[in-house]
């Protein structure tokens, strides 16, 4: 399986920061990583391996805030999702927007809808509801009992 080889090569390089590897099926993989290592891994994917950033999906779960950063390796048709779990109280992670512009908007959106703080983002303004939504209210957050 080609996906196997690609993912193994990557996780060997970042073995100390890899938490979990899930090979969903051929051409689909999810790698849970240490949030602090995300910029280094993303930069390796983008600059050295030719991955394209697709989008990031944020979730609010019992474990805290989770973000899947989806990358596509178009030459192989592979979708690799880097998965991070952030603190439930004060979710924050380093922004990727200084590396590629593609993540600029989605980080603004996640900041707006989930209240996740993206450190060193060039312009962390609201994307969708500028001026017509209360401050400090995050519509996509859930309440867990």
């Amino acid at each position, binding site marked *: 399986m080609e996906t196997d080889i690609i993912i193994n090569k990557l996780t060997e390089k970042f073995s100390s920061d890899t938490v979990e590897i899930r090979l969903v099926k051929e051409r*689909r993989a999810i790698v849970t990583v240490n949030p602090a290592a995300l910029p280094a891994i993303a930069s390796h994917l983008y600059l050295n391996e030719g991955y*394209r950033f697709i989008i990031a999906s944020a979730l609010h779960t019992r474990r805290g805030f989770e973000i899947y950063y*989806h990358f596509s390796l*178009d030459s192989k048709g592979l979708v690799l999702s880097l998965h991070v779990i952030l603190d439930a109280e004060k979710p924050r992670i380093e922004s990727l927007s200084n590396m590629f512009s593609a993540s600029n*908007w989605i980080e603004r959106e996640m900041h707006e809808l989930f209240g996740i703080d993206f450190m060193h983002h060039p312009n962390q303004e609201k*994307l969708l509801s500028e001026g017509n939504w209360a401050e400090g209210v995050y519509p*996509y957050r859930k309440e867990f009992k």
Partner: protein
Amino acid sequence: MSRKTLIPIGPYHPLQEEPELFKLFCDGEIVKDIKWETGYNHRGIEKLSESKSYDQVFFLVERICGICSTSHPFAFANAVEEIAGVEITDRAKYIRSIIGELERIHSHLLWVGLAGHFLGYNTVFMWAWKYREPILDLFEMITGNRNSYAMFRVGGVRRDIESFKIPRIREILSDLHKKLDLLTGAVMDDPVIHSRTKGVGVLTRQDVIDYAAVGPTARASGVAIDIRKDDPYAAYPLVNWKVITAQEGDVFAKAQVRLLEMYESASIIEQCLQGLEKTKEGDVNVKVNEIPEGVGTGRAEAPRGEVFHFVVSDGSNSPARHKIRAPSYVNIATFKKACIGQTIADATISLAAVDPCYCCTERMAAAYDISSGERIFNGTELIEHSLRRTAELRKSGAGHE
């Protein structure tokens, strides 16, 4: 220090079919900076999806965009079928691809028309939209709807394409071929279009990679990405076709890519029709009992580029999280590169060149009498009715100062 003038396009502007606000900061005629404000149309579809059953979500995501209304169900079906581990039948694959490619043709024709309109070249607009009509008629014949086709479901498609419909599809496609030759020839050779679009709104290869642009926007800058080829789904691995690219990255290159892609789409449809003839009629569904816990990634190549759906299932009847990325989300952001340094007149066509997703649904209404079930208006009668109303308005002097 030079003063900058702010020219707003939007939020409600005749150029834009959808509300959005472009702020062009200009020095004289030259655009120096551009800001974009959106959210006027935010419908909370990702959140809504969490409250719908998997079967209902298809109808919801179909309404994200009025033009590429099949690409979202396409990507969603791919995502959910990945979670459930379902392999659909060959016939369903062919039907899915036929719908996808017909949609590409009508969407590209719509864009060519709009691009002509933005250039002030309304003849192109009239032609392209006229040639688009028979495609919508085909949709009505196959799916019952000219738009929002409701064809997809988990495990297959909702309607079969019966064999008696195939000759009509072939007839319209062969007719379209001649019209496309005419339109493509006229657009490609027109000196006015050349002077308005060549070297305008250039997006370099590096810009495309930086902004992760997709679809014809990326392919016109020499980045040959196409999900149909890279991560094949539906019937695309079963047919022969090629990815169209251009190198220049200007508006002309984007138009060229779209025009030539329509020929590829027509060829894919023809091969899929041959596939339909080889498979058993009615064999379009696989029974899916439940969607287990898991995550699924669905991609589809919409007319504007890659549509991406990410579905998290907790084993219940509806998605626990459903993330949707439409191609315009990444393509619109490239405006910053394409428009700065252009004149205001060129900025409009540069904005339109990525084909931002405008929701336009035009559909003939058939009115039925509720008590008798009798059809009150047919198409011809509606046109007659419209003509009569216009004549009455003229007589009453409306529209004249």
